[in-house]
């Protein structure tokens, strides 16, 4: 049963990556004028002297030229994607797309992972407590605030935080991943500088997603509290602490972890916009600049890599899930 389940999950993720790659190829073709070709045409017309660009155009036509049948183009495209050959940046030729991405990737991963797990942990416990201590004044007071936070996209909350903490009170820097004057090296000063710059972007993701997690957990916890095993635990005289952790939280956590796997995509997409607000030097900002410059190969490359990242994280969550839920564990009778 576990093998079947794992096979299904792998198949789904493969399909997701394949679909993302295919959409990258197909969607631009749906437009009345292929934007990539239009852009390249513009470049050759305006910068005819630049032999570099001509090389780029030639390389593109060799692979995807209009003279080739669509299926051949598609095959070439999939082959190069499979090798992580994402082509060259149009705006920064001869920089390779994959190099630009690799430079930005650590920033995004660092920000996203820290913020996601912090928010998931805090939100889950908070939501469970709000459901458990329904009489509590403080928690009852928190609940509407949590709901407002859950309603806002990260970047909007980011704008509010920048306005308050960076613009009005000047406690944190407005923009960037590190100060312009800082020397990138593994020194205490630089690390502190990076941390100072990452607090607001991280905080906007954490605060906004705490709301989502807390609300979901509150709902699950209320459902779990109605389960027979909760009443039975009480009838056996189990302590409130044991009932909260080993019975309530423990079971309500299961759908929450499933939701985490599903939410990773939204989180990544949200983080892209947060980076834009803060000018944070990750994939989101790279994507934004590429959109501004119509640098299509960078746009498609970033989208592909983010989808791949999401698929990888989902797989990780899926593999860890059986540790939490014996019902899907390998070798079980169920």
């Amino acid at each position: 049963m576990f093998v079947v389940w794992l096979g299904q999950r792998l198949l789904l993720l493969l399909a997701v990556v394949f679909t993302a790659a295919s959409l990258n190829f197909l969607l631009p073709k749906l437009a009345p004028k292929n934007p990539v070709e239009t852009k390249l045409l513009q470049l050759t017309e305006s910068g005819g002297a630049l032999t570099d660009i001509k090389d780029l155009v030639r390389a593109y036509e060799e692979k995807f030229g209009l003279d080739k049948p669509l299926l051949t183009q598609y095959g070439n495209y999939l082959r190069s994607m499979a090798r992580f050959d994402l082509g060259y940046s149009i705006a920064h030729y001869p920089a390779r797309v994959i190099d630009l991405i690799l430079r930005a990737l650590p920033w995004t991963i660092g920000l996203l992972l820290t913020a996601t797990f912090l928010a998931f942990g805090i939100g889950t416990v908070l939501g469970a407590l709000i459901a458990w201590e329904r009489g509590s004044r403080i928690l009852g007071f928190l609940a509407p605030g949590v709901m407002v936070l859950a309603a806002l996209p990260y970047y909007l909350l980011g704008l509010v935080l920048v306005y308050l903490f960076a613009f009005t009170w000047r406690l944190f820097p407005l923009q960037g991943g590190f100060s312009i004057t800082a020397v990138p090296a593994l020194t205490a000063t630089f690390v502190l500088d990076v941390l100072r710059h990452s607090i607001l972007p991280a905080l906007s993701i954490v605060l906004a997603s705490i709301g989502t997690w807390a609300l979901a957990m509150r709902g699950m916890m209320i459902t779990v509290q109605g389960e027979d095993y909760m009443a039975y635990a009480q009838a056996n005289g189990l302590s409130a602490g044991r009932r909260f952790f080993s019975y309530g939280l423990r079971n309500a956590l299961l759908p929450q972890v499933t939701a985490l796997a599903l939410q990773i995509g939204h989180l990544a997409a949200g983080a892209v916009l947060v980076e834009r607000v803060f000018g944070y030097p990750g994939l989101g900002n790279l994507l934004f600049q590429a959109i501004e410059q119509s640098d299509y190969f960078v746009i498609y490359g970033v989208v592909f890599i983010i989808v791949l990242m999401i698929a990888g994280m989902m797989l990780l969550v899926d593999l860890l899930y059986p540790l939490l839920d014996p019902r899907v564990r390998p070798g079980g009778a169920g």
Partner: protein
Amino acid sequence: MNTRLVGGLVLLGLLVASCLAGLLLVDLDDARPLSAAIAHPPSAEYWLGTDTAGRDLAAVLVLGTLLTAKVGLLAGLIGITVGTVLAFVAAYYGGWTDRLISAVVDVLLTVPGLLVLIVLASAYPGQMTTTLMALVIAGLAWREPARQIRSQVLVMREANYVRMARLSGQGGLSIIFHEMIPNLLPYLGAGLVSAVSAAILASVGLEALGLGPRGEPTLGMTIYWMILDGAFLRGLWWWILEPVAVLIILFVGMYLLVTGLDETANPRLRRRA
């Protein structure tokens, strides 16, 4: 009545009322660039100030809210219609048709929508309009309704009253329109509101990234121009606060409305609340 529902209706009602008042009080033509002073703080002449391109922000916010609502409504309506039809086709025919539709929906639900929309929207450089924006977003807006309504129909298909209808000699279409759709109305209503809400969220996000209609002052484009022109560095606080405030009211209002409707339309949630 549900408090969330009331809260959402009050916030959105507030927004609609200010828009209506705005239509009477401001000239929407002032939302064009160079129709007012440049980067002027709120004053007697420009109540809400102006931006660096010389747009009157009062006009921009009224028009922007309307345009954003237009994108959301259009995309949401297309999404729920396409989704409902697909859901019935899948649930009614079953077998391979169902498996194919469900698999496509599952895969597309896992692909992060905003990223696909970025690829899609970036294919129209310089040609983007609010209508095209709505169509682009509708390209993915049918996924969630299709999934939810399909599972509703599957449950309903096994309900005894549907079996009774078969025993009464009713045919497939009669069962869909007379027995199922009336009971789906609450879900369809809640689904429409949530599709509109998701479409607005997606459109504002795309616009903030610079993929929106550059010729039309939607709320998302206002955020885009504001960041691009360095409102923070120039200290133009009104240009930051005003669109952010409108968006917060819009998003919180939509969220309360969606969750409130969900609770009302879905008895399972209602019982545990």
